[in-house]
């Protein structure tokens, strides 16, 4: 019954045919008859719409019309391939980057944890800002105090990070990152096994047999999900342990934990010191809120308990350290290291999206100016403003949908890259995937972009007297359109400026870090971890192992020297604790803190192997006793300003301790900070004390490429001790590069975003200028005819480009500054880029704008006077 589209059209066609025939019959010539008939009929689509509206509801009608417009848009866009491809690719980059970053942000910051009642799960942290320690961890006596006094926390789980040498699963000795936990840990965490069982209260008792649970990642990646591992006995450090289960996929916090074992597996945990020394901190603390208790209540109560501890044992909490207690949910704790970087990244990709949109807006605006003739004809024929907008909307919808589809395809590999990147900050990022919510985000962005873009072009005025030229094929650039084009180009430059200045800041920081002098010989020294069987296990065999290793490795061809110690510079960052000391003849002034120094235990030859100059005195010898020390230059200068430090005495702690005689002074080296700071360091010989039994780092100085030595070094070490794990051989240069990886990645990502932004902005500026030159050909022709030189025209266009860039940079600087102020309110301190990156970014943009204006400027100066004047 309802007439369809074809029927409506056919009826109108019939009408037209009759009208034309009647007119011809009246004597009109066929062409004018046709034209008059068409004119009388009016704007056919509008009439047809009216007829359809009789039959169909308004919405159906609009949708139908839009569908028709979309079909039309598809047809007309295939005729403008270059434009369409540019728009689609630009949008795809913008949307793809946003979708990828959003996926990572969601998985890190928003996705719930798998832990049962994760919002009741808290992480308790002790920090000491006074000595720059973000996470001080806890000692057993501290944890016992919390357990005894807290009522708002139903149960505590504790977790100490321990590196074990694991032998088993048909594999040689290897280092595993392990957690040693108490019996209630898994109950507190609210996790389940996928295989076997987890550790429970009976595993936590002192007499229990060793038991170990594998994390899901370790089980699937290292053991290829082999279910037969359950029940196997492995050697974990010095003791055997039975594999009892596999943990469900969950955040293996803290750190990249591979296995979790009960307390008895760690010999260190059974030492008296571990259980009695309040300052022997190495355990992290989790809690589950008691029923009815809120996070705030727990925070208040635990802070109270902590405050009482600090008052009761002042010697364990140096005032200088400013020890504080933080209580937050585990989820916040997991997200916090990644939060800032992810939000900044999200903002940066949003900026890229804005740039992409404004560039696309520019292209579409330019296109619509070329189409003004067509739009004017449509308007003259009675197409309403709504209908014209709908036509434009259809076109931008088609392009945006194309961009989104491509963008979401791009998002998948981008997510993989971004999640690996973000995993450096939060392990949760590894689980990021593209899913439905990202599709929704993409669809949302599409609609936003499409609607914005459809609103950009100016419609022909409904006031006919305003006189839109109907003449076909000419482009007239009205001041309004020109302003809009320029505005969008300026926005692009401004956004690019912010990104480039940010990237420049990161590059400057990274360069400073990378080129900073370190005091070590970076290229020729191979650092190798030869761990004790478990973290902090005293192994008397070390006293013979290292000298023998040094002797046998020293005989290898290409080896210039071998030394051992406890700290690989920058890689072993947990040795920043400073020990108070005093020296002969030095009285601290009133109120002055007692001096503290880093304590390092090194073998003879250490300084020579690492290239640290001995400034005075001598190095340790093989026969050294425990009563000698070597100090860094800073110690010598600060403690003995007027005299020679050699042969003076110093003490750790108070003067009642055994005195050490200073036998040498070496240059300052900072093995904790990449950028060196004057460091008070005191070195002791490795064989002199108990610390030597912990030695676990080997340094080999090579004549040629250090890495070629790795196989023979490994072989010799295994010959000396078959169960010795040999891990992470790397030159100091590569160690530092690895440590700088987050900075490098940040720099890379932001530079990439800045580069994309720059590219889009250059295309934008070039497009605007090219378009404005194209539209002003006639003007240029006239100017040439009345005496302007080509050079003047060229300079004019050039100046135009640079002016757009300058305005953009000014706007970007202002906007960026405002952004930093807002960010500061949300995130705390935000670093402002220094003068160099700002000036660098500005000059890059000005230069790029100059390059972008080159082609249009040349074109302007080559206008053929006659042709341009004849063209209308």
């Amino acid at each position: 019954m309802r007439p369809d589209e074809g029927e409506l059209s056919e009826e109108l066609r019939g009408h037209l045919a009759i009208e034309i025939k009647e007119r011809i019959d009246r004597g009109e010539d066929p062409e004018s008859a046709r034209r008059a008939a068409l004119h009388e009929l009016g704007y056919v689509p509008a009439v047809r719409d009216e007829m359809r509206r009789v039959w169909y509801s308004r919405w159906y009608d609009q949708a139908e019309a839009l569908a028709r417009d979309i079909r039309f848009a598809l047809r007309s866009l295939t005729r403008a391939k270059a434009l369409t491809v540019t728009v689609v690719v630009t949008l795809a980059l913008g949307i793809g980057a946003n979708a990828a970053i959003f996926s990572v942000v969601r998985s890190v910051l928003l996705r719930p944890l798998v832990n049962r009642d994760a919002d009741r799960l808290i992480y308790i942290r002790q920090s000491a800002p006074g000595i720059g320690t973000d996470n001080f961890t806890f000692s057993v006596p501290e944890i016992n105090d919390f357990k005894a006094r807290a009522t708002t926390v139903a149960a505590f789980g504790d977790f100490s990070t321990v590196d074990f040498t694991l032998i088993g699963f048909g594999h040689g000795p290897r280092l595993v990152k392990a957690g040693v936990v108490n019996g209630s840990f898994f109950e507190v965490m609210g996790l389940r096994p996928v295989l076997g069982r987890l550790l429970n209260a009976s595993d936590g008792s002192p007499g229990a047999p060793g038991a170990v649970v594998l994390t899901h990642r370790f089980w699937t990646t290292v053991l290829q999900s082999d279910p037969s591992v359950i029940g196997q006995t492995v050697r974990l450090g010095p003791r055997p342990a039975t594999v009892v289960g596999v943990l469900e996929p969950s955040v293996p916090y803290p750190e990249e934990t591979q296995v979790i074992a009960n307390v008895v597996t760690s010999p260190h945990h059974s030492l008296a010191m571990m259980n009695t020394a309040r300052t022997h901190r190495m355990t992290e603390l989790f809690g589950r809120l008691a029923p009815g208790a809120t996070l705030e209540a727990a925070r208040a109560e635990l802070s109270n308990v902590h405050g009482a501890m600090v008052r009761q044992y002042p010697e364990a909490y140096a005032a200088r350290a400013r020890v504080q207690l933080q209580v937050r949910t585990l989820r916040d704790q997991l997200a916090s290291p990644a939060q800032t970087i992810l939000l900044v990244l999200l903002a940066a990709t949003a900026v890229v999206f804005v740039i992409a949109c404004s560039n696309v807006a520019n292209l579409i605006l330019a296109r619509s100016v070329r189409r003004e003739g067509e739009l004017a004809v449509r308007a003259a024929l009675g197409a309403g403003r709504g209908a014209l907008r709908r036509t434009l909307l259809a076109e931008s919808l088609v392009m945006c949908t194309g961009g989104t589809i491509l963008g979401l395809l791009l998002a998948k590999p981008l997510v993989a890259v971004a999640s690996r990147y973000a995993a450096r900050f939060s392990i949760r990022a590894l689980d990021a995937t593209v899913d439905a919510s990202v599709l929704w985000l993409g669809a949302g962005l599409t609609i936003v972009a499409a609607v914005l873009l459809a609103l950009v072009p100016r419609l022909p005025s409904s006031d006919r007297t305003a006189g839109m030229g109907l003449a076909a094929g000419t482009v007239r650039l009205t001041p309004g359109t020109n302003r809009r084009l320029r505005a969008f180009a300026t926005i692009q430059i401004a956004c690019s400026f912010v990104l480039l200045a940010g990237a420049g800041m990161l590059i400057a920081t990274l360069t400073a870090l990378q080129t900073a002098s370190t005091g070590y010989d970076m290229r020729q020294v191979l650092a190798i971890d030869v761990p004790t069987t478990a973290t902090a296990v005293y192994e008397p065999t070390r006293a013979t192992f290292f000298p023998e290793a040094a002797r046998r490795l020293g005989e290898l061809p290409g080896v210039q020297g071998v030394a051992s110690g406890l700290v690989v510079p920058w890689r072993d960052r947990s040795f920043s604790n400073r020990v108070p000391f005093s020296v002969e003849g030095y009285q601290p002034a009133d109120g002055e803190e007692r001096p503290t120094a880093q304590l390092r235990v090194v073998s003879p030859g250490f300084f020579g192997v690492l290239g640290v100059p001995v400034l005075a005195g001598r190095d340790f010898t093989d026969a050294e006793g425990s009563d000698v020390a070597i100090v860094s230059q800073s110690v010598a200068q600060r403690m003995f300003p007027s005299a020679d430090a050699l042969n003076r005495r110093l003490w750790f702690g108070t003067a009642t301790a055994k005195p050490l005689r200073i036998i040498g002074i070496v240059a300052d080296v900072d093995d904790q900070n990449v950028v060196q700071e004057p460091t008070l360091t005191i070195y002791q010989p490795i064989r002199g004390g108990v610390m030597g039994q912990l030695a676990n780092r080997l340094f080999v100085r090579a004549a040629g490429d250090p890495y070629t030595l790795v196989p023979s070094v490994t072989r010799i070490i295994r010959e000396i001790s078959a169960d010795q794990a040999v891990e992470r051989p790397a030159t100091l240069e590569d160690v530092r590069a690895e440590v700088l990886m987050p900075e490098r990645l940040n720099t890379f990502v932001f530079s990439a975003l800045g580069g994309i932004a720059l590219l889009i902005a250059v295309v934008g500026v070039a497009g605007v200028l090219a378009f404005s030159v194209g539209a002003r050909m006639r003007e240029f022709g006239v100017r040439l005819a009345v005496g302007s030189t080509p050079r003047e025209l060229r300079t004019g266009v050039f100046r135009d480009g640079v002016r757009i860039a300058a305005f953009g940079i000014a706007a970007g600087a202002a906007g960026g500054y405002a952004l930093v102020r807002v960010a500061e309110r949300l995130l705390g301190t935000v670093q402002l880029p220094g003068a160099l990156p700002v000036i660098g970014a500005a000059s890059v943009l000005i230069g790029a704008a100059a390059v972008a204006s080159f082609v249009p400027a040349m074109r302007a100066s080559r206008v053929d006077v006659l042709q341009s004047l004849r063209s209308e």
Partner: protein
Amino acid sequence: MATPSDGQRLELLQGTLDMLILRTLKWGPQHGHGIGQAIRAQSDDLLKVETGSLYPALHRLVKRGWLKTEWGVSEANQRAKYYQLTAAGKTQLIREQDRWSRLVDAIGRIMNPARANTGE
């Protein structure tokens, strides 16, 4: 033939187009173009129906069931849609015609009181 200029042409009163269409179709089936021509001719060119109003009006009347349609071949040898009154359409025409004369009468009384009082 002298056609009235745009200024002399009369705007159709709201709602009267339907009635005129029904009246025109009283003489038999006709296509849209023909209906428009007929209204124009019978009003001595004083009434000109815009195509943009005519066709939607025709479809409206079809939808209400007062007209029915049939495809045929026009004098221009072109397929055209012919409109025809239904029984309900005829009733509606009578109703509208009646209403119209009462309306004209009423308005006439107001506009020309003297003639109304003395006349008829």
